């Protein structure tokens, strides 16, 4: 089959199409939108990607995205040092922060237990979490993994691991859309889920 588009255009479509949530049609639409942009606009976007990639790394303590060794939350002395909210992905922090209901710090697992995806506990930042609990001021852990099968299994795994350490372990209340992702929950629902968290026994 002959190439429909010039090589450079096709390359851009292919690259965009590899992004999450972008199908072949959207990739095409975005490509042609980008090609119509003034050069400086396109360069600003390209530079934003390059700069973010060069500057942003993961917080050494909680694995949130950060420009420094510690993210802005870990570096903030006003955050409650006794409570830790455990989430699957850094983007979930944004969802929890939006609720305004949580003043503690976070720990990002970077995934959930899912044998199908080849992810076991050892692929997650669980060892790092345990290290934090061993040497930190943390007294309560809130398990804020997604309310789907993998998130629930991960929460149960962590609860069983952490409870013997004598910490309070709680799980966000149900009421979140079942099978959903935390990032899609609205502030009010997630806020209520945090407020109504229950102690895991």
């Amino acid at each position: 089959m002959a190439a429909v588009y010039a090589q450079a255009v096709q390359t851009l479509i292919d690259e965009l199409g590899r992004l999450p949530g972008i199908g072949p049609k959207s990739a095409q639409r975005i490509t042609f939108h980008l090609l119509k942009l003034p050069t400086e606009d396109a360069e600003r976007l390209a530079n934003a990607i390059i700069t973010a990639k060069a500057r942003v790394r993961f917080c050494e303590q909680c694995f949130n995205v950060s420009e420094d060794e510690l993210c802005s939350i870990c570096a903030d002395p006003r955050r409650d040092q006794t409570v830790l909210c455990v989430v699957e992905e850094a983007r979930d922090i944004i969802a929890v922060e939006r609720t305004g209901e949580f003043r503690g710090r976070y720990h990002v697992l970077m995934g959930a237990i899912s044998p199908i995806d080849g992810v076991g506990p050892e692929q997650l930042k669980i060892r790092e979490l345990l290290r934090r609990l061993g040497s930190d001021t943390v007294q309560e852990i809130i398990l804020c993994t997604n309310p789907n099968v993998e998130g629930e299994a991960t929460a149960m795994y962590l609860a069983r691991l952490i409870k013997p350490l004598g910490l309070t372990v709680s799980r966000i209340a149900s009421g979140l859309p079942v099978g959903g992702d935390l990032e899609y929950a609205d502030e009010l629902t997630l806020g209520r889920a945090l407020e109504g968290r229950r102690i895991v026994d």
Partner: protein
Amino acid sequence: MIVRQFELVDFRNYVQASLSLTDHITAVVGDNGQGKTNLVEAIGWMATMSSFRGAPNEALVRVGTDQAIVRAHVEHEDGRMLLIECEINRSGRNRVLVNKQRLQRSRDLLGVLRVSVFAPDDLNLIKGGPGIRRDFLDETLVALRPKYDTDLRDLDRIVRQRNVLLKQVGGRLSADVAFTLDVWDSKLAATGEVIGTARAELLRDLVPLVSAAYRDLVDVDVRIDMVYDPVWRRTGLAVALADNRSDDVRRQLSLIGPHRDEIDIALAAMPARTHASQGEQRSLALAIKLAAHRLVTDRIGSPPLLVLDDVLSELDPRRAAALLQHLPAGQVVLTSADVLPPDAGAATVLRIVRGTVVS
């Protein structure tokens, strides 16, 4: 709930079609291969969000197009009109709109429109493997309480995760992995118990209705048993999984749980699968479907739309007549390749030719 109208766009062999349903029987006739069953499939899709033939989405979208649309104009008991629109996409998520408002979770559609489809394949309820009987019970559960849809999909996901983990373990279980397997066992036990209890309770209510429906169809009083008694329910699934762990690890498969259960069906105390005649099996399958339809009608308070897809031609004339005579109240869509029997009582006969409603 009354379905006033169905519309199909780019569904299977239909470019566009619209059909109005009557309050009771609407007949759809046409030669085989013209699209009668496709129509039934579209109607059924709105109720279960899946093809009753087990076809994937891309098979439902007309060749050369990216999206099929199925619409229903539904009138509720309280007089409210609902416009339900489903966009079935060849790739990507389906979208469901009710009165032009998109449902955040498409699966919230379940329970809005209930449909019972009777098809010649129902014979497999008796002759087929245990999976067909499990699926039938589970679909009935969802029709009764849509929340079971979440439990069933969780169960399926948990079993798949657990099976992959058992494969990864490769027959040798370390302490670390045993700790992870414990978690999956707890998840499987919790969801499995919910499903097991629901199935048992459903069957308890269903069996008397099956006996009554069978009597209606064949006019003989015979004992019918449908027994759901998996061994794990005697100890509880958590205990059974623990007891069976070494087998699961060795065979690298989840060998017990609701996903492996059987429902034993007996006619006159003999296994219907092996001991009943073809005619008895067909009547029994039909009686089971009728019973489920009646149970849902009783519980929900209004009958699901009943679709009889090419069912009459499979029955001998006496049983076909008995079925027509005992049709439940409510809307019925009846498809047939042949001329309808005079006692079918259809108020409207629609004719399908090559994916078009000729009326």
